[in-house]
């Protein structure tokens, strides 16, 4: 197909050839082409088949409001080829066809529409019930458009940027550019977003002139040049705005050029104010077969010629409702298109100059006429025009039917910003009845169409936005207002809802193949709200994001439903433009915290797991039962990285009061040089945290929390003291301190090689706390704890020194055979001692008493209003609670799995943790059971998953299982 290569408006570079593979053949396009225009240049007219009826579909709007040109590009489904720039070597395939788009075996379905009225699937295929599974399979196969393979790997670089702007202008047409320039005058940082690859909007392809006689395309290029030269305007072309959130947070994504380092990038803009200059799309004209290939909108036909140099047909009929249609007819005629007739829906109100131009070219014009039916299947062959009332009809041959009912503003950004939308009876648009805060409309979205008025409204909006963002704009707003007021205001819009047709083949939504007949059926069935009709008929829920039915559906419902007098708009939801998950995901960082010992734990062969926000070494060998790790702690000495523990300091005059509030124990009894183990409960008495507290001085404490709770502890304490006005400071030292746990009978021997203080049991007993320096340099807080049930030291070391201290201990322990143990070994070791881990032996409803930790609770400190104390008092008398008990299997070689149920005829509890203990040779564990089953000696019945009715048995036994007197940990 020959291109109009010399037009000054072109956005293609005809000399720069690109090739693409289409259905196995290589075809040529040129730089600047979209995939669809390149295919069109190669004679392709049918791009896809429709979802339900497999009707042939062609170029319609060029802006992606429908799935007509959705194709598979490089294995990516549902690519809107009409606004995807062609890149060399693209592989393009048709979707949803059996055969090809041109010859689709499933095209016969179009004849079966009578079987498929609105919502037919709700009324069929369920009688008898056995049909449904079979029918469902067929529905699944038939539904969907594109295909993605399960192992598909998306190629490309996906970038993200988070920027700040005083003013964001959405839309780079004349109004948007003028707004950006006006806002930039006052020095504001301005961001300008344009969805097409170039600025210019509706001026870009038009040769009609401004009041000064400059062709609009030239004017657009002048403005673009000014924008380019303005340092404080940051322009993002080929960038679609997709979301608007509270406080003018705007999201968008940009498609990268061949020279860019990114394929697409997600952009998030925190903007003080926003100008919406998104302009208009066209309101589709509804008539019979209104979506046949060869039927296209005015802007599409015009831009095909002016932007891409492709005459969209040879012989045309126009059916329009707006002066832009007449303008396009004149211009396309001059470019060589034969025009058999222009039907204008409007009886009057046409621009006389355009009427004169049409008359000069001897193009017949029918006022008050509209297209009623397009003939032909894979391409338009002729058209029946009719008077708007349907009284008289005439036929014209054509291979191009330019059809448009008028304009519809792109108000998505306003709707996303929670604007209430109302019907404006002058323009026929849905416009915001009240503007969202600091958001201003500019250009054609306000209803103006006069080029001067478009620019004037842009300037006004730009200045208002700058003022809203805090700029001193002086009297300029008033001046701009005055300038705009003398220019033509919003134009009266064409109100025609549909051509005079019955509507069986008149499509209101192309993506979902919804006809106006379907809408009528829905209304008759009681669906009288457009939003409900949308759900029932799926109109507007397809890949086009409702661009085709968005305006027409509410108009039609209002026209057809007696009870609705004013059209009610439907909702638009983000993203306004379909957006790749890859683009939203961006870099997709993995965000886990690493302990100071992370690298050495890896070097030592640690097998890591994610635990909350941390990554921790769970195992140190492929033996996930951890036999060697466990026995080494029991018989020798092991080291554990415990750095993930929550660590806090609380100090200030009311520090003790705060601790009294949240801990169940009497914290005034914490002695210096000793550690105290205690727990925190919530208002239900359920345990939410446990840890140790150390007194550093008067009203100065250091305490630990469980790994999972660390992030919430500060808030927890603040929250529960919020009405008291207490004076204390709380410092989260979790990341500032590393923790090394050294445990086992030889722990003292190892540690004594590294520190100078007296480590004897008398000088540093169990439950003791000491501070000292290692190598006269590294400050250490040391605690003697017994979590794993052996002689054990927990060293809290500043993070930057943790590795050094670890290495010293490792070296010192070499002669004893010191080795790492991981979280799983610790889990078994502490289980043998029946020390609980919250979340493992407890769940949400488990309270302090249930865990057998009631001894921690001091009932006398009533004045502290201990969180949870009221509930604990009540629970003391409650027999219907689960209790934590120790259990031992009757068969020591068959431990029940964690999570197995304890049952009789009902569920009575469950196994929290159970292991075959290497130390004792017994299968032992802890279980939460109903209190009636908690007595020692009770035989309990265990139901495991996949047990096939075979139950296991165990008995409640005394705890702990290992070293019941605690001699080893106190040694």
């Amino acid at each position, binding site marked *: 197909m020959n291109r109009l290569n010399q037009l000054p408006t072109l956005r293609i570079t005809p000399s720069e050839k690109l090739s693409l593979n289409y259905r196995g053949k290589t075809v040529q396009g040129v730089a600047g082409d979209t995939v669809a225009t390149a295919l069109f240049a190669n004679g392709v007219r049918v791009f896809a088949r429709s979802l339900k009826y497999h009707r042939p579909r062609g170029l319609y709007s060029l802006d992606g409001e429908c799935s007509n040109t959705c194709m598979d590009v490089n294995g990516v489904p*549902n690519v809107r080829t009409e606004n995807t720039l062609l890149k060399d070597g693209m592989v393009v395939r048709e979707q949803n066809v059996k055969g090809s788009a041109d010859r689709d075996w499933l095209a016969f379905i179009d004849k079966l529409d009578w079987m498929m009225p609105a919502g037919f699937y709700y009324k069929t*295929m369920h009688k008898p019930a056995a049909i449904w599974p079979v029918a469902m399979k067929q529905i699944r196969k038939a539904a969907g458009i594109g295909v993605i393979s*399960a192992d598909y790997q998306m190629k490309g670089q996906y970038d993200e940027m988070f920027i700040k702007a005083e003013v964001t202008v959405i839309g780079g047409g004349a109004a948007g550019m003028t707004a950006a320039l006006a806002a930039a005058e006052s020095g504001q940082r301005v961001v300008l977003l344009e969805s097409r690859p170039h600025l210019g909007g509706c001026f870009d392809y038009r040769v009609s002139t401004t009041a000064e006689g400059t062709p609009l395309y030239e004017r657009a290029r002048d403005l673009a040049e000014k924008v380019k030269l303005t340092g404080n305007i940051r322009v993002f072309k080929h960038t679609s705005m997709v979301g608007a959130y509270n406080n003018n947070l705007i999201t968008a994504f940009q498609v990268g050029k061949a020279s860019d380092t990114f394929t697409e990038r997600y952009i998030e803009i925190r903007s003080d104010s926003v100008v919406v200059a998104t302009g208009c799309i066209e309101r589709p004209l509804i008539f019979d077969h209104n979506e046949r290939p060869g039927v296209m909108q005015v802007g599409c036909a015009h831009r095909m010629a002016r932007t891409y140099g492709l005459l969209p047909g040879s012989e045309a009929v126009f059916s329009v409702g707006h002066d832009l249609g007449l303008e396009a007819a004149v211009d396309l005629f001059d470019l060589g298109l034969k025009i058999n007739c222009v039907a204008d829906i409007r009886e009057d109100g046409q621009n006389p100059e355009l009427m004169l131009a049409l008359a000069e070219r001897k193009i017949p014009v029918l006022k008050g006429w509209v297209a009623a039916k397009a003939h032909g299947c894979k391409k338009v062959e002729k058209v029946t025009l009719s008077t708007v009332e349907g009284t008289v009809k005439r036929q014209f041959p054509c291979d191009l039917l330019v059809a448009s009912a008028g304009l519809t503003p792109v108000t998505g950004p306003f709707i996303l910003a929670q604007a209430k939308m109302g019907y404006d009876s002058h323009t026929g648009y849905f416009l915001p009845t009240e503007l969202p805060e600091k958001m201003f409309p500019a250009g054609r979205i306000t209803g103006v169409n006069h080029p001067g008025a478009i620019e004037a409204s842009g300037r006004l909006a730009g200045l208002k936005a700058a003022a809203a963002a805090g700029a001193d704009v002086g009297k300029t707003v008033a001046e701009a207002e005055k300038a705009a007021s003398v220019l033509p205001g919003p134009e009266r819009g064409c109100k025609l809802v549909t051509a005079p047709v019955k509507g069986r083949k008149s499509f209101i939504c192309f993506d979902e193949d919804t006809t106006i007949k379907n809408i009528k059926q829905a209304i008759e069935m009681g669906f009288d709200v457009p939003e409900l009709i949308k759900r029932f008929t799926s109109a507007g829920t397809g890949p086009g994001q409702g661009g085709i039915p968005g305006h027409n559906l509410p108009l039609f419902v209002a026209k057809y439903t007696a009870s609705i007098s004013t059209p009610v708009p439907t909702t638009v939801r983000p993203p306004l433009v379909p957006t790749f998950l890859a683009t939203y995901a961006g870099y997709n960082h993995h965000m886990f915290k690493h302990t100071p010992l992370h690298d050495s734990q890896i070097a030592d062969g640690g097998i890591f797991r994610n635990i909350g926000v941390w990554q921790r070494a769970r195992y140190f060998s492929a033996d996930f039962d951890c036999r060697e790790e466990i026995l080494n702690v029991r018989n020798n000495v092991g080291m554990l990285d415990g750095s993930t523990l929550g660590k806090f300091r609380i100090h200030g005059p009311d520090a003790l009061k705060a601790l009294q509030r949240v801990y169940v124990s009497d914290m005034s009894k914490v002695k210096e040089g000793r550690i105290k183990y205690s727990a925190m409960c919530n208002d239900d008495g359920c345990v939410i945290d446990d840890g140790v507290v150390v007194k550093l001085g008067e009203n100065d404490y250091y305490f630990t929390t469980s790994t999972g709770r660390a992030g919430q502890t500060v808030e927890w304490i603040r929250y529960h003291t919020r009405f008291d006005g207490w004076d204390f400071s709380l410092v989260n030292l979790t990341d500032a301190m590393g923790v090394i746990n050294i445990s086992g009978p030889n722990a003292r021997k190892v540690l004594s090689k590294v520190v100078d203080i007296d480590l004897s049991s008398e000088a540093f007993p169990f439950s003791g706390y000491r501070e000292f320096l290692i190598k006269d340099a590294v400050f250490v807080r040391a605690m003697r704890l017994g979590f794993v049930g052996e002689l054990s030291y927990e060293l809290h070391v500043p993070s930057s020194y943790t590795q050094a201290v670890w290495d010293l201990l490792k070296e010192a322990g070499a002669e004893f055979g010191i080795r790492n143990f991981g979280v799983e070994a610790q889990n078994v070791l502490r289980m043998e001692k029946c020390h609980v881990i919250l979340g493992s032996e407890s769940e949400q409803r488990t309270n302090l008493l249930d865990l057998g930790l009631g001894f921690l609770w001091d009932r006398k400190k009533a004045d502290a209003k201990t969180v949870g104390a009221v509930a604990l008092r009540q629970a003391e008398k409650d027999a219907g609670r689960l209790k934590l008990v120790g259990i031992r299997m009757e068969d020591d070689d068959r431990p029940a799995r964690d999570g197995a149920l304890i049952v009789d005829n009902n569920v009575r509890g469950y196994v929290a943790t159970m292991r075959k203990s290497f130390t004792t040779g017994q299968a032992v564990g802890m279980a939460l059971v109903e209190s009636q089953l908690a007595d020692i000696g009770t035989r309990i019945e265990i139901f495991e998953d996949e047990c096939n009715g075979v139950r296991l048995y165990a008995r409640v036994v005394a705890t702990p299982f290992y070293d019941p007197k605690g001699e080893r940990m106190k040694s």
Partner: protein
Amino acid sequence: MFWKSKPLWGNKTRLKSSYDAVIIGGGLHGLATAYYLAKEHGLTDVAIIEKRFIGFGGAGRNTAIVRANQRTQYNVPLYKEALDLWPVLTKELDYNLMFNNCGNLNLMHSEAAMKAARMTIATAQFHGVESHLIDAKQAKELVPALNISEDITFPIHGAMFHPPGGIVRHDAVVWGLAKGAAKHGVDIHQHTEATAIHTEGGKITGVETSRGRIHTPRVLVSAGGYSAGLIYHMLGIKLPIAVLTIQAMVTQPLKPLLDHVVSSGAYHCYANQTLKGEIATGAHMDQWPNYTTQNTAHYIKHQAEALSDWLPCLRGVKFMRIWGGLADMTPDMAPIMDGNDHYEGFYMDCGWGYFGFKSCSAVGKYMAQYMASGHCPDMLKPFNLRRYENHQLMGETAELVSYTPNN
């Protein structure tokens, strides 16, 4: 044209001045209760009062997943019954609810999660509900798109596979129940707002609406996310419910890719393919209480990041639409179903969080029984409001209490 179109749930009717029962909220629970009241208990003089249109709230916003693999013995039988009712209702209502019992796969990403799953599975099996623990490889066989490699944020250890679960077309349930209720004589009053509940001597006497007063001895509030607010404002009963916005989204329609519902707690993310071919996905809630149903910028981004990890082929697919609904959360993730306690004739059915859809059929049946007889059926007894006063949380969630609006 095969069928003549006629109003699905009756013509618009006049609001009568008196009804035997009034149900506030034209969502799934209200419609189901009305349906069963009329059908099973002969209580046909029932009005449903709906402020907007039926299915406006959670009924039309959920992602339609149904399952019966809850955690406790109180919940599993209720949801099992609900699950079993889908084919029954399809037949009874003569309306295709499009139950796709494709099975649910719940991914586990740690040893601790596998343990938790084992308990849930044992509970299901104990109650005769099919559910199995499978390893990552088996999960991949069921869902070939799954990424079971080690180098993702939360590597997949295994999954809980629950074959009887699946997806039901949620809008169809709304319309089908409305159709069924109307057929048995229930009046559905849309665009009618309940503004007050009248009591006298500890008994319900009537409901005030934007279209006039209704005398009635029984009222059920089942208004989804709006229930707690309504109950407080109308009767002064404060419920331990925090209302949060929860968001969901769909991709563009695709040919069959996912044959099961797949979800991941660690990623806060689930995905299933609707019969239309869209991948419906969503999961966690806003972390602050709000009634806005507004979308937030980072939710959709989070979702894309999560899916990029565990269903990486979806990176080549586009999000098409995101929306929000309300989840009315109780402290123990289990609902409140109660009645005849504060006032004789006052019933409530709320606090469903994001479980309201999967339970609606069975709950409608039992709430109807409750309202018709005045006595609480055994199935609903554990869900009374007093359990919170007694610090007897139900244990439906294993998660330790964290710093949430409930604390």
